[in-house]
């Protein structure tokens, strides 16, 4: 018995591919701008200064972190769309496509948990000892930053698969994939953040904040743009394949009847 086939819902692919830019915009404006993390309060600040920061900016941080927690899930949906496009290069049993989907899904967890911790700190700051607020602030940073290896697996899988694309004009250009490797390389020094309160390797530092975060931002934006375009291209490819198949069938039928 021939297995039943279902038409591909490219509209859904396109919709979820757009979740990448939605995540980036939400995170940038809510977590970065509104909650005052561009740049964040420094690791060198003492407990009283961190508590004062949370009390002074309480409402902005509360709104920013609440919306960031919601927006974090869009990264998962985007990761699923990227994975679907990857399977068209790697095949339905592709291991790297699965790693990408898992990587994107699990990346959401530290983002959402860290934002939840900072949200709690902003709500409870007036009633808490400064040391507790300080601990919550650091806890958030350790979770959001040091889980980078999960995202590294995701980026590595995406870059490898799209580099293997044998189309004359690949779905995702090579430079984006090589930028993915740059992003992976930029993540590793993040492991140094527990050791430094100032300088480029502190969590607010030139390297571990500005470079590590923004190479990732650029990568997500670039992959999103090309994956959205890729969905349209795949739809055209499938249409052409279906069309040529139909033409072939007509030709065979015509030959038989003749």
């Amino acid at each position, binding site marked *: 018995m021939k297995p039943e086939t279902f038409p591909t819902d490219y509209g859904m692919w396109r919709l979820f591919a757009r979740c990448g830019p939605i995540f980036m915009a939400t995170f940038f404006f809510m977590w970065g701008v509104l909650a005052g993390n561009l740049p964040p309060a420094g690791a060198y600040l003492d407990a009283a200064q961190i508590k004062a920061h949370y009390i002074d900016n309480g409402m902005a941080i509360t709104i920013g972190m609440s919306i960031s927690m919601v927006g974090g899930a869009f990264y998962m949906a985007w990761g699923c769309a990227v994975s679907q496009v990857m399977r068209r290069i790697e095949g339905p049993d592709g291991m790297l496509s699965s790693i990408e989907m898992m990587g994107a899904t699990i990346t959401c967890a530290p983002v959402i948990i860290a934002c939840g911790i900072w949200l709690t700190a902003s709500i409870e700051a007036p009633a808490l000892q400064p040391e507790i607020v300080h601990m919550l602030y650091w806890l958030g940073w350790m979770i959001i930053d040091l889980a980078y290896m999960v995202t590294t697996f995701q980026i590595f899988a995406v870059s490898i698969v799209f580099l293997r694309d044998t189309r004359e004009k690949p779905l995702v250009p090579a430079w984006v994939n*090589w930028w993915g490797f*740059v992003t992976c390389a930029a993540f590793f020094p993040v492991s*140094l953040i527990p050791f430094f309160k100032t300088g*480029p390797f502190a969590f607010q530092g030139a390297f571990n904040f500005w470079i590590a975060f923004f190479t990732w931002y650029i990568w997500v934006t670039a992959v999103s743009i090309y994956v959205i375009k890729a969905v349209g291209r795949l739809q055209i490819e499938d249409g052409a394949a279906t069309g040529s198949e139909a033409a072939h069938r007509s030709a065979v039928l015509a030959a038989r009847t003749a």
Partner: protein
Amino acid sequence: MTELISANHVESRRLPGVEGVWVFIAADMAMFGVLFVSFMLERLENPALFEQSRRALDVNFGGINTLILLTSSWFVCLAVDAAKRDQLPQVPHHLAAAFVCGLAFCASKAFEYTKKLSAGISMLTNDFYMFYYTLTGMHFMHVVAGCVVLGVLWNKSRAGAFTSDNRVGIECGASYWHMVDVLWIVLFPLLYLLR
């Protein structure tokens, strides 16, 4: 005739490897550039501490490591040149020599780190050593990755994978390895020699 000259001109101006590897090299060097600038800015704030700490580094180690990496880059050049000339048996020999140089660098660096750590000097000792360990550590990771790349290239070259018509892979690896070399050539004077 004009077409031949034009074709030769295009060939001589061809970018080695693939464009993507140059994106990686440019971005990676820019990241190191940020760290070099950070080092210089910190140094300006505390020149006495940086000078005192610098004097405690063993210049001989730095010098030997420089020679090792320059030699390995030379072997990589010979390997690419052999592939261009279709001297296929020579390619794996040169790559193996470059790989051994890479391992020698790793061994030398590990010995240097051990010596420093056993003397009680870690990256938490002061700002100079923070930069010393992180800059050389990141470079060390690049050397390790480069050794893996050289190992893969060596394995492929034994099967005659790289020829004058098919040398993109070896050129990508060579370009990366030269970047690792160039980074060390900046790092060595910055950390060991700059007074």
